[in-house]
Protein backbone atom coordinates (compact mmCIF):
# COMPACT_ATOMS: atom_id res chain seq x y z
CA UNK A 1 0.00 0.00 0.00
CA UNK A 2 2.22 2.80 -1.20
CA UNK A 3 -0.22 5.03 -3.10
CA UNK A 4 -1.67 8.14 -1.56
CA UNK A 5 -5.33 8.06 -0.58
CA UNK A 6 -7.70 10.87 0.29
CA UNK A 7 -9.17 10.14 3.69
CA UNK A 8 -10.68 11.66 6.79
CA UNK A 9 -8.39 11.74 9.82
CA UNK A 10 -10.66 9.42 11.77
CA UNK A 11 -10.76 6.93 8.90
CA UNK A 12 -7.00 7.05 8.40
CA UNK A 13 -6.61 6.30 12.09
CA UNK A 14 -8.99 3.35 11.82
CA UNK A 15 -7.28 1.94 8.72
CA UNK A 16 -3.87 2.31 10.37
CA UNK A 17 -5.15 0.40 13.40
CA UNK A 18 -6.04 -2.51 11.14
CA UNK A 19 -2.68 -2.38 9.40
CA UNK A 20 -0.85 -2.12 12.72
CA UNK A 21 -2.39 -5.42 13.76
CA UNK A 22 -4.91 -4.10 16.25
CA UNK A 23 -6.61 -7.24 17.59
CA UNK A 24 -9.54 -5.53 19.26
CA UNK A 25 -11.37 -2.23 19.27
CA UNK A 26 -14.01 -1.21 21.79
CA UNK A 27 -15.81 2.11 21.40
CA UNK A 28 -18.92 4.14 21.90
CA UNK A 29 -20.37 6.69 19.46
CA UNK A 30 -19.56 10.34 20.10
CA UNK A 31 -19.05 13.25 17.72
CA UNK A 32 -16.55 14.07 16.24
CA UNK A 33 -15.00 10.59 16.17
CA UNK A 34 -17.82 8.16 15.43
CA UNK A 35 -16.27 7.38 12.02
CA UNK A 36 -13.63 5.30 13.77
CA UNK A 37 -16.20 2.89 15.22
CA UNK A 38 -18.16 2.90 11.95
CA UNK A 39 -15.10 2.18 9.85
CA UNK A 40 -13.87 -0.58 12.11
CA UNK A 41 -17.35 -2.11 12.50
CA UNK A 42 -17.30 -2.51 8.73
CA UNK A 43 -13.66 -3.52 8.21
CA UNK A 44 -12.43 -5.39 11.29
CA UNK A 45 -14.61 -8.50 10.78
CA UNK A 46 -12.95 -8.99 7.37
CA UNK A 47 -9.70 -9.59 9.24
CA UNK A 48 -11.29 -11.72 11.96
CA UNK A 49 -10.56 -9.04 14.51
CA UNK A 50 -12.78 -8.08 17.42
CA UNK A 51 -14.79 -4.88 17.17
CA UNK A 52 -17.51 -3.99 19.61
CA UNK A 53 -19.77 -1.08 20.34
CA UNK A 54 -19.86 -0.99 24.12
CA UNK A 55 -22.72 0.29 26.27
CA UNK A 56 -20.64 3.23 27.48
CA UNK A 57 -17.12 4.62 27.46
CA UNK A 58 -16.77 3.20 30.96
CA UNK A 59 -17.42 -0.25 29.55
CA UNK A 60 -15.15 0.37 26.50
CA UNK A 61 -12.09 1.20 28.55
CA UNK A 62 -12.66 -1.78 30.84
CA UNK A 63 -13.03 -4.07 27.84
CA UNK A 64 -9.69 -2.64 26.70
CA UNK A 65 -8.30 -3.51 30.14
CA UNK A 66 -9.47 -7.11 29.80
CA UNK A 67 -8.22 -7.62 26.25
CA UNK A 68 -4.92 -5.79 26.82
CA UNK A 69 -4.44 -7.78 30.03
CA UNK A 70 -4.80 -10.95 27.98
CA UNK A 71 -1.94 -9.68 25.80
CA UNK A 72 -3.82 -8.40 22.76
CA UNK A 73 -3.18 -5.20 20.80
CA UNK A 74 -6.18 -3.12 21.79
CA UNK A 75 -7.53 0.34 21.07
CA UNK A 76 -10.38 2.62 22.02
CA UNK A 77 -11.25 6.08 20.79
CA UNK A 78 -13.59 8.79 21.98
CA UNK A 79 -13.97 12.53 22.32
CA UNK A 80 -13.62 14.74 25.37
CA UNK A 81 -16.74 13.89 27.47
CA UNK A 82 -16.22 10.22 26.72
CA UNK A 83 -12.54 10.41 27.60
CA UNK A 84 -13.53 11.96 30.93
CA UNK A 85 -15.65 8.88 31.58
CA UNK A 86 -12.66 6.66 30.85
CA UNK A 87 -10.31 8.31 33.33
CA UNK A 88 -10.89 5.75 36.10
CA UNK A 89 -10.14 2.92 33.71
CA UNK A 90 -7.07 4.70 32.35
CA UNK A 91 -5.71 5.04 35.87
CA UNK A 92 -6.21 1.28 36.42
CA UNK A 93 -4.59 0.51 33.06
CA UNK A 94 -1.58 2.67 33.94
CA UNK A 95 -1.40 1.11 37.41
CA UNK A 96 -1.62 -2.41 36.00
CA UNK A 97 0.85 -1.47 33.22
CA UNK A 98 -1.25 -2.56 30.28
CA UNK A 99 -0.21 -1.50 26.79
CA UNK A 100 -3.04 -0.02 24.74
CA UNK A 101 -3.84 2.93 22.51
CA UNK A 102 -6.46 5.50 23.49
CA UNK A 103 -7.40 8.27 21.10
CA UNK A 104 -9.08 11.53 22.11
CA UNK A 105 -10.52 13.52 19.22
CA UNK A 106 -10.72 16.63 21.36
CA UNK A 107 -13.81 18.83 21.21
CA UNK A 108 -14.30 22.05 23.12
CA UNK A 109 -15.73 21.99 26.65
CA UNK A 110 -16.29 21.99 29.56
CA UNK A 111 -19.31 19.79 30.03
CA UNK A 112 -21.15 18.79 26.91
CA UNK A 113 -19.51 21.83 25.31
CA UNK A 114 -19.58 21.78 21.55
CA UNK A 115 -18.67 19.28 18.88
CA UNK A 116 -16.23 21.73 17.33
CA UNK A 117 -12.46 21.23 17.79
CA UNK A 118 -10.64 22.28 20.92
CA UNK A 119 -7.47 21.64 22.90
CA UNK A 120 -8.97 21.99 26.35
CA UNK A 121 -8.02 18.43 27.32
CA UNK A 122 -4.29 19.16 27.45
CA UNK A 123 -4.09 19.14 31.25
CA UNK A 124 -6.25 16.03 31.46
CA UNK A 125 -3.99 14.25 28.99
CA UNK A 126 -0.54 15.15 30.26
CA UNK A 127 -1.01 15.91 33.95
CA UNK A 128 -3.05 12.79 34.75
CA UNK A 129 -6.82 13.01 34.29
CA UNK A 130 -7.41 10.01 36.52
CA UNK A 131 -6.39 9.43 40.12
CA UNK A 132 -2.94 8.62 41.42
CA UNK A 133 0.60 9.05 40.15
CA UNK A 134 0.74 7.90 36.56
CA UNK A 135 1.70 9.12 33.13
CA UNK A 136 0.66 8.25 29.62
CA UNK A 137 2.79 8.81 26.58
CA UNK A 138 0.82 11.50 24.71
CA UNK A 139 1.16 11.92 20.93
CA UNK A 140 -0.28 14.96 19.16
CA UNK A 141 -0.95 14.51 15.42
CA UNK A 142 -1.19 17.62 13.25
CA UNK A 143 -2.28 16.02 9.99
CA UNK A 144 -4.26 13.12 8.60
CA UNK A 145 -0.93 11.48 7.78
CA UNK A 146 0.06 11.64 11.43
CA UNK A 147 -3.35 10.31 12.48
CA UNK A 148 -2.23 7.16 10.68
CA UNK A 149 1.50 7.21 11.51
CA UNK A 150 1.01 7.68 15.24
CA UNK A 151 -1.18 4.59 15.47
CA UNK A 152 1.83 2.38 14.62
CA UNK A 153 4.09 4.47 16.82
CA UNK A 154 1.54 4.52 19.63
CA UNK A 155 1.07 0.76 19.68
CA UNK A 156 4.82 0.17 19.53
CA UNK A 157 5.55 2.60 22.37
CA UNK A 158 2.73 1.07 24.43
CA UNK A 159 4.26 -2.38 24.00
CA UNK A 160 7.81 -1.15 24.55
CA UNK A 161 7.00 0.47 27.88
CA UNK A 162 3.95 -1.61 28.91
CA UNK A 163 2.10 1.66 29.25
CA UNK A 164 -1.06 3.24 27.87
CA UNK A 165 -0.46 5.68 25.01
CA UNK A 166 -2.86 8.52 24.31
CA UNK A 167 -3.18 10.15 20.95
CA UNK A 168 -4.53 13.65 21.54
CA UNK A 169 -6.08 14.79 18.29
CA UNK A 170 -8.92 17.21 17.76
CA UNK A 171 -12.18 17.54 15.88
CA UNK A 172 -10.60 19.25 12.90
CA UNK A 173 -7.77 16.75 12.37
CA UNK A 174 -10.28 13.94 12.85
CA UNK A 175 -12.82 15.31 10.40
CA UNK A 176 -10.71 16.89 7.68
CA UNK A 177 -9.69 15.06 4.52
CA UNK A 178 -6.09 15.01 3.36
CA UNK A 179 -3.83 12.71 1.44
CA UNK A 180 -2.41 9.88 3.43
CA UNK A 181 -0.03 7.04 2.70
CA UNK A 182 0.09 3.83 4.68
CA UNK A 183 3.70 2.86 5.00
CA UNK A 184 5.13 -0.62 5.19
CA UNK A 185 5.10 -1.59 8.83
CA UNK A 186 7.17 -4.17 10.60
CA UNK A 187 5.78 -4.94 13.99
CA UNK A 188 8.44 -5.36 16.67
CA UNK A 189 8.35 -8.71 18.43
CA UNK A 190 7.33 -8.14 22.03
CA UNK A 191 7.00 -10.97 24.53
CA UNK A 192 3.99 -10.59 26.80
CA UNK A 193 4.85 -13.24 29.35
CA UNK A 194 2.71 -11.42 31.91
CA UNK A 195 -0.56 -11.79 29.98
CA UNK A 196 -3.49 -13.77 31.38
CA UNK A 197 -3.81 -16.39 28.69
CA UNK A 198 -4.43 -19.33 31.01
CA UNK A 199 -1.88 -20.81 33.41
CA UNK A 200 0.03 -23.82 32.16
CA UNK A 201 1.74 -26.10 34.71
CA UNK A 202 5.09 -24.71 33.58
CA UNK A 203 4.71 -21.22 34.99
CA UNK A 204 3.34 -19.34 37.97
CA UNK A 205 -0.10 -17.78 37.59
CA UNK A 206 -0.30 -14.34 36.00
CA UNK A 207 -2.51 -11.70 37.46
CA UNK A 208 -3.24 -8.21 36.30
CA UNK A 209 -3.81 -5.77 39.13
CA UNK A 210 -3.16 -2.23 40.29
CA UNK A 211 -3.78 -3.14 43.95
CA UNK A 212 -0.87 -3.11 46.39
CA UNK A 213 -2.55 -2.71 49.73
CA UNK A 214 0.61 -2.70 51.83
CA UNK A 215 2.15 0.78 51.57
CA UNK A 216 5.65 -0.70 51.38
CA UNK A 217 4.70 -2.66 48.27
CA UNK A 218 2.71 0.21 46.81
CA UNK A 219 5.75 2.44 47.16
CA UNK A 220 7.90 -0.11 45.35
CA UNK A 221 5.35 -0.20 42.54
CA UNK A 222 5.20 3.62 42.40
CA UNK A 223 8.99 3.81 42.20
CA UNK A 224 9.01 1.24 39.42
CA UNK A 225 6.50 3.33 37.47
CA UNK A 226 8.51 6.49 38.12
CA UNK A 227 11.67 4.81 36.82
CA UNK A 228 9.78 3.86 33.68
CA UNK A 229 8.48 7.41 33.19
CA UNK A 230 12.03 8.71 33.63
CA UNK A 231 13.19 6.36 30.87
CA UNK A 232 10.35 7.62 28.68
CA UNK A 233 11.38 11.21 29.36
CA UNK A 234 14.97 10.37 28.40
CA UNK A 235 14.18 8.45 25.22
CA UNK A 236 10.89 9.48 23.69
CA UNK A 237 10.74 13.27 23.45
CA UNK A 238 9.67 14.17 19.93
CA UNK A 239 9.08 17.51 18.30
CA UNK A 240 9.22 19.28 14.96
CA UNK A 241 10.81 22.65 14.24
CA UNK A 242 9.88 24.95 11.40
CA UNK A 243 12.09 27.91 10.51
CA UNK A 244 13.69 28.12 13.94
CA UNK A 245 17.27 28.51 12.59
CA UNK A 246 17.11 32.29 12.34
CA UNK A 247 14.05 32.92 14.49
CA UNK A 248 13.78 35.92 16.79
CA UNK A 249 10.35 34.82 17.95
CA UNK A 250 8.94 31.36 18.51
CA UNK A 251 5.46 29.94 18.26
CA UNK A 252 4.89 26.90 20.39
CA UNK A 253 1.83 24.98 19.28
CA UNK A 254 0.66 21.40 18.77
CA UNK A 255 -1.94 19.72 16.57
CA UNK A 256 -4.37 21.99 14.78
CA UNK A 257 -2.90 25.16 16.35
CA UNK A 258 0.48 24.24 14.89
CA UNK A 259 -1.08 23.95 11.45
CA UNK A 260 -2.53 27.44 11.76
CA UNK A 261 0.81 28.74 13.05
CA UNK A 262 2.59 27.44 9.94
CA UNK A 263 0.54 29.81 7.83
CA UNK A 264 1.08 32.58 10.39
CA UNK A 265 4.84 32.11 9.99
CA UNK A 266 4.61 32.83 6.24
CA UNK A 267 2.54 35.96 6.82
CA UNK A 268 4.80 37.24 9.62
CA UNK A 269 7.96 36.62 7.64
CA UNK A 270 6.54 38.59 4.70
CA UNK A 271 6.21 41.42 7.20
CA UNK A 272 9.84 40.94 8.22
CA UNK A 273 9.21 39.25 11.56
CA UNK A 274 11.50 36.28 11.88
CA UNK A 275 9.33 33.75 13.64
CA UNK A 276 9.62 29.98 13.85
CA UNK A 277 7.58 27.15 15.30
CA UNK A 278 8.32 24.44 17.77
CA UNK A 279 5.63 21.79 17.52
CA UNK A 280 5.72 19.26 20.35
CA UNK A 281 4.83 15.85 18.91
CA UNK A 282 4.96 14.20 22.31
CA UNK A 283 3.07 16.26 24.87
CA UNK A 284 4.33 13.80 27.45
CA UNK A 285 7.28 13.63 27.56
CA UNK A 286 7.55 17.32 26.77
CA UNK A 287 10.45 18.95 24.87
CA UNK A 288 11.47 21.14 27.81
CA UNK A 289 15.18 20.91 27.08
CA UNK A 290 14.89 22.09 23.48
CA UNK A 291 12.70 25.00 24.55
CA UNK A 292 15.35 26.04 27.04
CA UNK A 293 17.98 25.97 24.28
CA UNK A 294 15.79 28.10 22.04
CA UNK A 295 15.21 30.52 24.93
CA UNK A 296 18.78 31.74 24.52
CA UNK A 297 18.09 32.49 20.86
CA UNK A 298 14.62 34.07 20.69
CA UNK A 299 13.27 37.24 22.30
CA UNK A 300 9.88 35.85 23.17
CA UNK A 301 7.80 32.71 22.87
CA UNK A 302 4.10 32.60 22.09
CA UNK A 303 2.09 29.54 23.00
CA UNK A 304 -0.88 29.26 20.66
CA UNK A 305 -3.65 26.96 21.84
CA UNK A 306 -7.35 26.26 21.44
CA UNK A 307 -8.02 26.67 25.14
CA UNK A 308 -7.62 29.18 27.94
CA UNK A 309 -3.87 28.63 28.30
CA UNK A 310 -2.78 25.15 29.35
CA UNK A 311 0.36 24.09 27.50
CA UNK A 312 1.77 27.58 28.11
CA UNK A 313 2.49 26.42 31.65
CA UNK A 314 4.82 23.73 30.30
CA UNK A 315 6.51 26.23 27.99
CA UNK A 316 7.16 28.45 31.01
CA UNK A 317 8.45 25.46 32.96
CA UNK A 318 10.89 24.67 30.18
CA UNK A 319 12.04 28.23 29.66
CA UNK A 320 12.25 28.88 33.39
CA UNK A 321 12.02 32.66 33.13
CA UNK A 322 14.77 33.05 30.56
CA UNK A 323 12.51 34.81 28.04
CA UNK A 324 8.94 36.09 28.22
CA UNK A 325 6.35 33.45 27.35
CA UNK A 326 3.04 34.81 26.11
CA UNK A 327 -0.22 33.09 25.31
CA UNK A 328 -2.73 33.44 22.51
CA UNK A 329 -5.80 31.26 22.45
CA UNK A 330 -9.33 30.76 21.28
CA UNK A 331 -11.98 28.73 23.02
CA UNK A 332 -15.42 27.36 22.39
CA UNK A 333 -14.57 25.59 19.15
CA UNK A 334 -13.59 28.89 17.53
CA UNK A 335 -10.36 28.91 15.54
CA UNK A 336 -7.96 31.85 15.23
CA UNK A 337 -7.05 32.99 11.75
CA UNK A 338 -3.32 33.12 10.95
CA UNK A 339 -3.75 36.90 10.61
CA UNK A 340 -5.09 37.18 14.17
CA UNK A 341 -2.07 35.28 15.46
CA UNK A 342 0.31 37.50 13.50
CA UNK A 343 -1.50 40.59 14.74
CA UNK A 344 -0.98 39.45 18.33
CA UNK A 345 2.66 38.63 17.60
CA UNK A 346 3.15 42.15 16.23
CA UNK A 347 1.96 43.63 19.53
CA UNK A 348 4.67 41.57 21.24
CA UNK A 349 7.41 42.67 18.85
CA UNK A 350 6.62 46.28 19.73
CA UNK A 351 7.07 45.66 23.46
Amino acid sequence: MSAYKLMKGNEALAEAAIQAGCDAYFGYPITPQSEVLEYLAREMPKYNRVVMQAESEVASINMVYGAAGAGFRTMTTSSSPGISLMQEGISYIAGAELPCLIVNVNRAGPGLGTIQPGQGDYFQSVKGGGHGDYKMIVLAPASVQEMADFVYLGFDLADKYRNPVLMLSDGAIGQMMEKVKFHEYKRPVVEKAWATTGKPKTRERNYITSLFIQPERMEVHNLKLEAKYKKIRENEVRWEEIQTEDADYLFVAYGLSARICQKAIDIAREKGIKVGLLRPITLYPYPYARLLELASQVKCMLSVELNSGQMVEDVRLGVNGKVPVEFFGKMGGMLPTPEEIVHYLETLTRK
Partner: protein
Amino acid sequence: MVYHKPSTLVEVNMHYCPGCAHSLVHKLIMEVVEEMDIQEQTIGVAPVGCSVFAYDYMDIDMQEAAHGRACAVATGIKRLMPDKYVFTYQGDGDLAAIGIGETLHAINRGENILIVFMNNAVYGMTSGQMAPTTLPGMHTTTSPDGRDVSFYGAPIKVSELMAQLPGSYFVSRQAVNSANAVRRAKKALLQAFKYQQLHKGTCLVEIIGNCPSNWKMTPLEASKFIDEEMVKTFPLGDIKVPKPV
Protein backbone atom coordinates in the same frame (compact mmCIF):
# COMPACT_ATOMS: atom_id res chain seq x y z
CA MET B 1 -13.28 -41.04 48.27
CA VAL B 2 -10.83 -39.07 50.35
CA TYR B 3 -11.34 -35.36 50.80
CA HIS B 4 -8.51 -33.15 49.63
CA LYS B 5 -7.97 -29.48 49.10
CA PRO B 6 -8.00 -28.78 45.38
CA SER B 7 -4.51 -28.40 43.88
CA THR B 8 -5.81 -25.29 42.14
CA LEU B 9 -6.01 -23.39 45.46
CA VAL B 10 -2.86 -21.55 46.48
CA GLU B 11 -1.29 -22.72 49.73
CA VAL B 12 -1.82 -19.59 51.82
CA ASN B 13 -4.13 -18.56 54.62
CA MET B 14 -7.13 -16.62 53.39
CA HIS B 15 -7.92 -13.24 54.87
CA TYR B 16 -11.64 -13.92 55.16
CA CYS B 17 -13.48 -13.76 58.49
CA PRO B 18 -14.48 -16.97 60.27
CA GLY B 19 -17.78 -18.22 58.88
CA CYS B 20 -17.51 -16.17 55.66
CA ALA B 21 -18.86 -17.72 52.47
CA HIS B 22 -16.05 -16.49 50.20
CA SER B 23 -13.45 -19.07 51.22
CA LEU B 24 -15.93 -21.88 50.63
CA VAL B 25 -17.02 -20.60 47.24
CA HIS B 26 -13.40 -19.99 46.18
CA LYS B 27 -12.77 -23.64 47.01
CA LEU B 28 -15.83 -24.83 45.11
CA ILE B 29 -14.81 -22.97 41.97
CA MET B 30 -11.29 -24.31 42.22
CA GLU B 31 -12.64 -27.84 42.73
CA VAL B 32 -14.60 -27.46 39.51
CA VAL B 33 -11.51 -26.20 37.68
CA GLU B 34 -9.51 -29.14 38.99
CA GLU B 35 -12.18 -31.73 38.21
CA MET B 36 -12.69 -30.42 34.69
CA ASP B 37 -8.92 -30.13 34.29
CA ILE B 38 -9.22 -26.61 32.87
CA GLN B 39 -6.66 -24.70 34.92
CA GLU B 40 -4.81 -23.81 31.73
CA GLN B 41 -8.00 -22.63 30.02
CA THR B 42 -9.53 -20.61 32.84
CA ILE B 43 -9.24 -16.87 33.44
CA GLY B 44 -10.97 -15.26 36.40
CA VAL B 45 -11.88 -11.65 37.06
CA ALA B 46 -11.82 -10.41 40.65
CA PRO B 47 -13.98 -7.49 41.80
CA VAL B 48 -13.56 -4.68 44.27
CA GLY B 49 -14.90 -5.88 47.58
CA CYS B 50 -13.90 -8.50 50.13
CA SER B 51 -12.88 -10.87 47.35
CA VAL B 52 -10.59 -8.30 45.72
CA PHE B 53 -7.69 -10.63 46.56
CA ALA B 54 -9.28 -13.71 44.97
CA TYR B 55 -6.20 -13.96 42.74
CA ASP B 56 -4.09 -14.56 45.83
CA TYR B 57 -5.97 -17.79 46.42
CA MET B 58 -6.99 -19.16 43.06
CA ASP B 59 -4.06 -20.68 41.20
CA ILE B 60 -5.19 -19.53 37.78
CA ASP B 61 -4.55 -16.47 35.61
CA MET B 62 -6.72 -13.60 36.83
CA GLN B 63 -7.42 -9.93 36.35
CA GLU B 64 -8.49 -7.50 39.03
CA ALA B 65 -11.21 -5.20 37.70
CA ALA B 66 -12.24 -1.72 38.74
CA HIS B 67 -15.29 -1.55 41.00
CA GLY B 68 -18.30 -2.87 39.12
CA ARG B 69 -16.53 -3.39 35.79
CA ALA B 70 -15.78 -7.11 35.99
CA CYS B 71 -18.26 -8.05 33.27
CA ALA B 72 -16.75 -5.49 30.87
CA VAL B 73 -13.25 -6.80 31.63
CA ALA B 74 -14.46 -10.38 31.18
CA THR B 75 -16.03 -9.37 27.86
CA GLY B 76 -12.64 -8.07 26.70
CA ILE B 77 -10.96 -11.34 27.69
CA LYS B 78 -13.60 -13.71 26.36
CA ARG B 79 -14.09 -11.99 23.00
CA LEU B 80 -10.38 -12.34 22.29
CA MET B 81 -10.17 -15.88 23.63
CA PRO B 82 -13.59 -17.40 22.97
CA ASP B 83 -12.46 -20.93 23.76
CA LYS B 84 -11.25 -20.13 27.27
CA TYR B 85 -13.38 -20.41 30.39
CA VAL B 86 -13.90 -16.92 31.76
CA PHE B 87 -15.68 -16.10 34.99
CA THR B 88 -16.23 -13.06 37.15
CA TYR B 89 -16.52 -13.21 40.90
CA GLN B 90 -18.50 -10.25 42.23
CA GLY B 91 -20.23 -9.13 45.38
CA ASP B 92 -23.59 -7.41 45.61
CA GLY B 93 -22.19 -3.90 45.87
CA ASP B 94 -19.90 -4.49 42.91
CA LEU B 95 -22.45 -6.21 40.70
CA ALA B 96 -25.85 -4.89 41.79
CA ALA B 97 -24.99 -1.26 42.56
CA ILE B 98 -22.09 0.32 40.70
CA GLY B 99 -21.77 -2.46 38.12
CA ILE B 100 -25.32 -3.35 37.24
CA GLY B 101 -25.04 -1.60 33.87
CA GLU B 102 -21.99 -3.58 32.75
CA THR B 103 -23.56 -6.77 34.12
CA LEU B 104 -26.88 -6.28 32.38
CA HIS B 105 -25.31 -5.44 29.04
CA ALA B 106 -22.85 -8.34 29.20
CA ILE B 107 -25.74 -10.71 29.87
CA ASN B 108 -27.87 -9.06 27.21
CA ARG B 109 -25.10 -9.68 24.69
CA GLY B 110 -25.07 -13.26 25.88
CA GLU B 111 -21.36 -13.15 26.70
CA ASN B 112 -20.26 -16.74 27.16
CA ILE B 113 -18.97 -16.15 30.65
CA LEU B 114 -19.93 -17.30 34.11
CA ILE B 115 -20.84 -14.64 36.64
CA VAL B 116 -20.48 -15.82 40.23
CA PHE B 117 -22.55 -13.37 42.21
CA MET B 118 -21.90 -13.33 45.95
CA ASN B 119 -24.90 -11.83 47.68
CA ASN B 120 -24.61 -11.23 51.41
CA ALA B 121 -26.86 -8.15 51.43
CA VAL B 122 -24.15 -5.80 52.71
CA TYR B 123 -20.94 -4.09 51.65
CA GLY B 124 -18.41 -6.34 53.34
CA MET B 125 -15.03 -4.75 52.73
CA THR B 126 -16.10 -1.28 53.82
CA SER B 127 -17.63 -2.95 56.88
CA GLY B 128 -21.33 -3.31 56.61
CA GLN B 129 -23.04 -0.55 54.67
CA MET B 130 -26.41 -1.02 52.97
CA ALA B 131 -26.32 -2.75 49.58
CA PRO B 132 -28.94 -2.82 46.82
CA THR B 133 -29.72 -6.32 48.11
CA THR B 134 -30.10 -5.40 51.80
CA LEU B 135 -33.32 -6.90 53.15
CA PRO B 136 -36.25 -4.63 54.08
CA GLY B 137 -35.82 -3.51 57.66
CA MET B 138 -32.26 -4.87 57.86
CA HIS B 139 -29.91 -2.82 59.99
CA THR B 140 -26.62 -1.75 58.44
CA THR B 141 -24.20 1.06 59.24
CA THR B 142 -25.90 3.30 56.67
CA SER B 143 -29.44 2.15 57.42
CA PRO B 144 -29.18 2.28 61.21
CA ASP B 145 -32.97 2.17 61.63
CA GLY B 146 -33.36 -0.64 59.13
CA ARG B 147 -33.70 -0.43 55.34
CA ASP B 148 -36.67 1.81 54.61
CA VAL B 149 -38.18 0.51 51.41
CA SER B 150 -40.19 3.70 50.92
CA PHE B 151 -36.89 5.62 50.79
CA TYR B 152 -34.42 3.19 49.17
CA GLY B 153 -36.74 0.83 47.31
CA ALA B 154 -36.85 -2.92 47.67
CA PRO B 155 -33.83 -5.21 47.39
CA ILE B 156 -32.92 -5.94 43.79
CA LYS B 157 -33.48 -9.56 42.85
CA VAL B 158 -30.59 -9.75 40.43
CA SER B 159 -31.07 -13.34 39.32
CA GLU B 160 -34.77 -12.92 38.55
CA LEU B 161 -34.00 -9.68 36.71
CA MET B 162 -31.19 -11.14 34.61
CA ALA B 163 -33.14 -14.32 33.89
CA GLN B 164 -35.53 -12.13 31.88
CA LEU B 165 -32.82 -11.32 29.35
CA PRO B 166 -32.62 -13.63 26.34
CA GLY B 167 -28.82 -13.56 26.68
CA SER B 168 -28.83 -15.48 29.97
CA TYR B 169 -28.62 -19.24 29.57
CA PHE B 170 -28.53 -20.63 33.06
CA VAL B 171 -29.40 -18.74 36.26
CA SER B 172 -29.34 -20.35 39.66
CA ARG B 173 -29.40 -19.09 43.25
CA GLN B 174 -27.69 -21.19 45.88
CA ALA B 175 -26.28 -20.94 49.38
CA VAL B 176 -23.36 -22.52 51.21
CA ASN B 177 -24.69 -22.55 54.76
CA SER B 178 -25.04 -26.33 55.15
CA ALA B 179 -23.42 -29.43 53.73
CA ASN B 180 -26.38 -30.02 51.44
CA ALA B 181 -26.41 -26.42 50.29
CA VAL B 182 -22.69 -26.61 49.50
CA ARG B 183 -23.26 -29.72 47.38
CA ARG B 184 -26.04 -28.00 45.45
CA ALA B 185 -23.94 -24.86 44.96
CA LYS B 186 -21.05 -26.97 43.67
CA LYS B 187 -23.38 -28.71 41.24
CA ALA B 188 -24.64 -25.36 39.91
CA LEU B 189 -21.09 -24.05 39.48
CA LEU B 190 -19.98 -27.22 37.71
CA GLN B 191 -22.98 -27.07 35.42
CA ALA B 192 -22.33 -23.40 34.66
CA PHE B 193 -18.68 -24.03 33.78
CA LYS B 194 -19.71 -26.86 31.46
CA TYR B 195 -22.34 -24.70 29.77
CA GLN B 196 -19.58 -22.32 28.68
CA GLN B 197 -18.48 -24.97 26.20
CA LEU B 198 -21.81 -24.61 24.40
CA HIS B 199 -21.45 -20.88 23.63
CA LYS B 200 -25.14 -20.38 24.34
CA GLY B 201 -25.06 -17.37 26.60
CA THR B 202 -24.27 -16.10 30.06
CA CYS B 203 -24.46 -18.25 33.17
CA LEU B 204 -25.20 -16.54 36.46
CA VAL B 205 -24.81 -18.38 39.74
CA GLU B 206 -25.86 -16.31 42.71
CA ILE B 207 -24.69 -17.48 46.10
CA ILE B 208 -26.40 -16.20 49.23
CA GLY B 209 -23.30 -15.71 51.33
CA ASN B 210 -22.88 -15.70 55.08
CA CYS B 211 -21.40 -12.51 56.50
CA PRO B 212 -21.32 -13.02 60.26
CA SER B 213 -18.97 -10.08 60.88
CA ASN B 214 -21.19 -7.46 59.31
CA TRP B 215 -24.44 -9.11 60.30
CA LYS B 216 -23.11 -9.01 63.90
CA MET B 217 -23.82 -12.71 64.33
CA THR B 218 -21.94 -15.87 65.14
CA PRO B 219 -21.28 -18.11 62.12
CA LEU B 220 -24.06 -20.43 63.25
CA GLU B 221 -26.52 -17.58 63.68
CA ALA B 222 -25.57 -16.33 60.21
CA SER B 223 -26.28 -19.73 58.67
CA LYS B 224 -29.65 -19.78 60.39
CA PHE B 225 -30.37 -16.21 59.23
CA ILE B 226 -30.03 -17.33 55.62
CA ASP B 227 -32.55 -20.14 56.06
CA GLU B 228 -34.99 -18.04 58.08
CA GLU B 229 -34.73 -14.55 56.56
CA MET B 230 -32.62 -14.27 53.40
CA VAL B 231 -34.50 -16.95 51.49
CA LYS B 232 -37.78 -15.07 51.96
CA THR B 233 -36.47 -12.38 49.60
CA PHE B 234 -34.00 -14.57 47.73
CA PRO B 235 -35.52 -18.03 47.31
CA LEU B 236 -32.97 -20.71 46.45
CA GLY B 237 -32.98 -22.94 43.39
CA ASP B 238 -32.61 -22.81 39.64
CA ILE B 239 -34.27 -19.73 38.14
CA LYS B 240 -33.56 -20.32 34.48
CA VAL B 241 -32.53 -23.65 33.06
CA PRO B 242 -31.83 -24.41 29.42
CA LYS B 243 -34.80 -25.88 27.62
CA PRO B 244 -34.29 -29.50 26.61
CA VAL B 245 -33.57 -29.77 22.90
